[in-house]
């Protein structure tokens, strides 16, 4: 075997290896894009840190992204579903104004799960609070119990839902933290859409995750922390 042959061999090997390294994540991504057959892990707790100082009043890109992702109409009459909404708040005594997105806070001790008669409201192992529409009978007790008014009731028949996001008349629904995206290894649509990156999504249980580091280093609060629900959504600058 000549030197040239040997050289060609190693060259082929390394270039093939490099190609494999380059393609592999894509292949893996393609694989996980279909969702994992393993159940959600209880070691993970998904959460968000919302930086209200970066949230612009009047901007509703997160709301629009949510509506598009989950197939919501975007209409805002009293009977329309709103999974995420922008709230403008103003401190009565100081006059300080803020704008922030409000949605299901994915509590550790969710009142909606406690009150649901049929266990349709439930918390997944990774902390995401969901409605199992196969079990929901539409009693709306969870809507009464939610301290954040995060839930909506589907008041009319729906057609042409997103195949990834089933929704239907007579059942209650709310922010799913884009569970169908999380299971594919993606971020929730609102976090991805925010032009100022005000929504940081990640694993609250992983001490090395960006969100955990941030929560350790900057002041953040839970909304209505006095209720002791330990929400998965935290706010900064409130």
């Amino acid at each position, binding site marked *: 075997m000549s030197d040239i042959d040997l050289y060609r061999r190693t060259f082929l090997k390394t270039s093939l290896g490099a190609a494999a390294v380059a393609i592999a994540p894509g292949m893996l991504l393609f694989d996980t894009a*279909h*969702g*994992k*057959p*393993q*159940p*959600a892990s209880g070691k993970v707790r998904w959460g968000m840190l919302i930086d209200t100082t970066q949230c612009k009043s009047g901007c509703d890109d997160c709301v629009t992204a949510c509506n598009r992702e989950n197939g919501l109409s975007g209409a805002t009459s009293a009977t329309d579903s709103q999974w995420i909404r922008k709230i403008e708040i103003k401190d009565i005594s100081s006059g300080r104004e803020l704008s922030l997105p409000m949605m299901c806070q994915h509590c550790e001790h969710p009142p909606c799960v406690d009150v649901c008669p049929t266990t349709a409201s*439930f918390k*997944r*192992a*990774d902390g995401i609070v*969901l409605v*199992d*529409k*196969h079990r929901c009978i539409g009693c709306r007790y969870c809507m009464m119990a939610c301290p954040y008014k995060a839930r909506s009731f589907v008041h009319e028949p*729906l057609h*042409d*839902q*997103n*195949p*990834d996001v*089933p*929704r*239907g*008349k*007579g*059942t209650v629904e709310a922010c799913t933290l884009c*569970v169908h995206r999380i*299971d594919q290894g993606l971020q929730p649509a609102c976090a991805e859409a925010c032009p100022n990156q005000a929504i940081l999504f990640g694993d609250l249980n992983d001490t090395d995750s960006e969100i955990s580091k941030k929560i350790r280093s900057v002041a953040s609060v839970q909304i209505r922390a006095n209720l002791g629900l330990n929400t998965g959504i935290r706010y900064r600058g409130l």
Partner: protein
Amino acid sequence: MKLFASLLLCLCIPAAWAAGTNAPKPDIGKGGQCVEDVQWMRKNHMHLLKHQRDEALRKGARDEKLSLKNCIECHASTRDDSVIARDDSFCVACHRYEAVKIDCFECHSGKRKSAWSQRNAK
């Protein structure tokens, strides 16, 4: 015994005849077999779907092969991308014949996801 056998035979003939004429002829779409054989699936698909829905939704274990979405992907009609749009659509044809109400599509889309994504890409 002979009498019984002949009686059975007599009963079977019209049954077979009826089965041959009225049996539903669903539009199986692209079709193919990825889970179990046809007879098994006819009998047991609901158990699979029900088991799968709890696994996927409540536990987050999404076995792609058994998901409703995956069923629809292959079995939606090649004409209208749906399993429920017409009387002879994949799900409707048999369910109508057996008079069993399908509850899935109150919430789930009956459309093939690829077709839905294409249409809603804009």
